[in-house]
């Protein structure tokens, strides 16, 4: 009987947010079970209600959110700490969110970890203080004992020098270490259930792989039930025993991992898996085009590019450190070609893009650009005034479609601005051109008079693209242009970029941390690590036969969206020789 009894059983859960237009149902009649020792992955795109579902379990939905109906049954006798034969079942949905009864559950029976390891820890309290607090809240132990247990926990999550790092502050930890500390905090009271809300989304793939295997190992040791929330089908394939797919607050499909991946029933699940699988291979459209129009002459020739930042030491007498963000990078981009630059956070890939645009003054090297008339000039040494012409040919698309559009400008003003600033068009002609550009990126001309907030993330990115192509550029530098988008939108935006490439004869430098996206979109790829390019070559070749150990470790860490491949690959960790 014990094997059949879930730890948590959610029945017909409804959570609503009161808004001025009446209640908004974020979670709509959701039911699922969490089994001890098993992982349930809750999958869905942004706004699907998966986070609210998780928070409803602990009754920590921010107001005005409220559980309206349904049951959340916690079988306390099934948790490891409370294991007994007598049934001890509690309905969490019936408890007052401020009651001591629910507080006794939070962190003790059910623990939670969150997406942003930086902002989810208090910046002004030490790690030890925050973890020790969780222990002392639920167990009657002395400060010294709590401290000893905290050190033990930090060791368990593989944080080096735990007895020293316990007194450090979160900002002294790296992103991966912070998430480890979060996990240690969640495990403080040996919970029976761990809820992980996108715990690896903000991390690099290599760090993600480490955190995932850590959670897995701890789960095996402790027999916890894990509710894992993610939008990444690769991660799902890697860790899930069961999958539940959410959309618009409803659970649309629910089943074991293999059957969901191989035999999805609901259209939405099919679409989700389809867009993931689509991204896992080169775009057919790109291959077809390259067969017809092989890349032409060299457009951009970057040689020995360097960018050094000086870090102020804070002292008047000591010289600051130097950071070689871009270190001796040599690249070429041919016309009609897509060059990918892949690397983890801090590898200098964004800095490289900005150096090529001359947003930053560069510290050394040459950026030779050949313009339409076949004239080659070195952008690295050009004075700002002469850069104007080159900047019309080189445009950028940014990562965050929310932050990169001025919220106080209409779409027409946003897209028209480069045309107006460069004195190309004005008045009626400008309006017509903006309408034409909107058509090119697949938006109706009626969008012109509206403000960015009226559009979704994907539509905003289209507006950003329309702005980039307004001056008929020849090179577009796309810096993580699809990273902030849901996976189903990613392939759409990439296809749009490929279509524009054909119509407008563009070349792309595509900066990303996402190998799948690079593989889909780019002809060649350069792998960046600590400011250097460690490997460069045709995308398929680099992806299938990586030469440099860093590339190998990067590729081995990428979760593969196929549950049957689970555990078949050996993950390697690249450590630079000192």
């Amino acid at each position: 009987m014990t094997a059949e009894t879930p730890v948590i059983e959610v029945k017909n859960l409804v959570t609503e947010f009161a808004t001025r237009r009446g209640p908004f149902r974020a979670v709509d009649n959701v039911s699922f079970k969490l089994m001890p020792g098993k992982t349930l992955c809750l999958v869905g795109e942004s706004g699907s209600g998966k986070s609210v579902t998780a928070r409803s379990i602990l009754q920590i939905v921010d107001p005005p959110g409220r559980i309206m109906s349904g049951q959340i049954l916690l079988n306390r006798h099934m948790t490891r700490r409370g294991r007994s034969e007598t049934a001890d079942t509690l309905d969490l949905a019936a408890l007052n969110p401020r009651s001591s009864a629910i507080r006794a559950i939070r962190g003790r029976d059910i623990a939670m970890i969150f997406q942003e390891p930086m902002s989810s820890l208090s910046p002004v309290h030490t790690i030890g203080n925050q973890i020790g607090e969780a222990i002392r809240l639920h167990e009657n132990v002395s400060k010294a004992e709590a401290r000893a247990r905290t050190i033990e926990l930090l060791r368990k999550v593989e944080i080096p020098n735990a007895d020293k790092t316990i007194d450090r502050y979160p900002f002294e930890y790296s992103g991966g270490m912070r998430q480890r500390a979060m996990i240690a905090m969640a495990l403080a009271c040996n919970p029976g259930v761990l809820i992980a809300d996108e715990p690896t989304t903000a991390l690099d793939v290599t760090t993600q792989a480490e955190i995932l295997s850590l959670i897995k190992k701890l789960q095996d040791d402790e027999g916890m039930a894990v509710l894992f929330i993610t939008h990444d089908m690769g991660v799902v394939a890697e860790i899930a025993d069961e999958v539940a797919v959410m959309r618009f607050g409803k659970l649309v499909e629910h089943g074991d991992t293999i059957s969901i991946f191989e035999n999805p029933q609901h259209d939405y699940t099919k679409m989700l898996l389809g867009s993931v699988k689509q991204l896992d291979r080169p775009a057919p459209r790109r291959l077809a085009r390259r067969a017809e129009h092989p890349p032409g002459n060299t457009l951009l020739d970057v040689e020995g590019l360097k960018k050094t930042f000086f870090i102020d030491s804070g002292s008047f007498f000591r010289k600051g450190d130097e950071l070689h963000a871009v270190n001796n990078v040599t690249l070429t981009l041919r016309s009609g070609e897509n060059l990918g630059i892949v690397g983890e956070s801090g590898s200098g890939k964004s800095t490289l893009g900005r150096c090529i645009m001359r947003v930053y003054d560069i510290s050394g090297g040459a950026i030779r650009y050949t313009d339409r008339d076949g004239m080659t000039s070195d952008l690295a040494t050009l004075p700002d005034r002469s850069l104007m012409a080159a900047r019309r040919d080189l445009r950028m698309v940014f990562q965050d479609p929310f932050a990169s559009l001025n919220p106080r400008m209409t779409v027409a003003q946003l897209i028209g601005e480069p045309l107006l600033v460069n004195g190309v068009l004005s008045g009626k002609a400008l309006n017509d051109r903006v309408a034409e550009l909107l058509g090119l990126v697949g938006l109706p001309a009626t969008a012109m008079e509206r403000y960015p907030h009226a559009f979704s993330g994907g539509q905003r990115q289209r507006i950003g693209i329309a702005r980039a192509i307004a001056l008929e550029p020849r090179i577009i530098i796309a810096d993580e242009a699809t990273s902030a988008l849901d996976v189903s939108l990613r392939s759409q935006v990439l296809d749009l970029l490929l279509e524009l490439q054909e119509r407008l004869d563009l070349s792309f430098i595509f900066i990303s941390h996402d190998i799948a996206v690079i593989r889909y979109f780019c002809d060649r790829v350069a792998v960046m690590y600590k400011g250097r390019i460690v490997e460069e070559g045709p995308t398929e070749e680099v992806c299938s036969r990586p030469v440099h150990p860093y590339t190998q470790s990067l590729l081995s860490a990428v979760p593969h969206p196929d549950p049957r491949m689970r555990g078949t690959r050996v993950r390697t960790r690249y450590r630079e020789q000192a």
Partner: protein
Amino acid sequence: MLLAYVLKRLFWSIPFMFAVSLVAFALIQAPPGDFVTSLAATLAQSGDVVEQARLDALRERYGLDQPFLVQYWRWITGVLHGDFGQSFEWNQPVSDLIWERMGLSVVLAIATLLFTWAIAFPVGIYSAVKKYSIGDYIISAIGFIGLSIPNFLLGLVLMYIAVVHFGSDTSGLFSEQYQQAPWSWDKFIDLLKHLWIPVIILGTSSTASLIRIMRANLLDELHKPYVTTARAKGLSEWHLLVKYPVRLALNPFVSTIGWAFPQLVSGSVIISYVLSLPTAGPLLLQALLAQDMYLAGAFILLLCCLSVFGMIVSDILLAIIDPRIRYR
């Protein structure tokens, strides 16, 4: 780490103080003419004719004919030995004139600061936690009224109420019998009896603005992810509030020390006139009008010292409550 930070701060304040003193001296020298000119003007008004030779002799005696830097050097070396020079107008050493008044100013400033915090801190927290409740609206309304009433008007109204309804003597900081008396416990009690009116008057607008600041800051912090984390740990709402968001919303509070000191001394001039308080403000104004440069200079220098000191104190407190500042 913290000690190094404090020492560094203190070390840097020394050259900074010198620069400040130079500027202060330049400022009091800036108006056209000097004390002798205004003395001559005053004498001329009463019908006396002063010979040029006598004026020149006076200038020479006070060293007013020397170049700026020489005058500054003489003044600053004196100040370092505790000698602020001679007040032309009062014919007394400046140091005899200022200390008691400065002392009372500082007492008034600190009392006002404590009053401001004592009110603004809890009320600000309440206002943020119970956002858009009736209590919040009432507090906001009172706050805006407090911000918009001019200090001197509030002073007159309070004086009227105190005199008519409570029958208490409201002018000055002491009752008559204690005015010249040496310090004693009774005199201190008497001071407290008089202090509340200026404290309320001076504190009202800063209390109102601090409530707004606290409310806005706390509202920003209340929905940060780390609050959710703490809640998910099982912390009770009250402990959670005090330990996390309030702690982070505290920074602007501490920063107020820096600007509160000089503002209270210079901003209280009008109030001090209205309530005839024996604080530094009125004397400073008088000294400036009479171009009594050593007296004015001493006040300005001390005010600058107070601001620098206030800044150092608030910086050090900030470093204590926020480790991120310490390590930068």
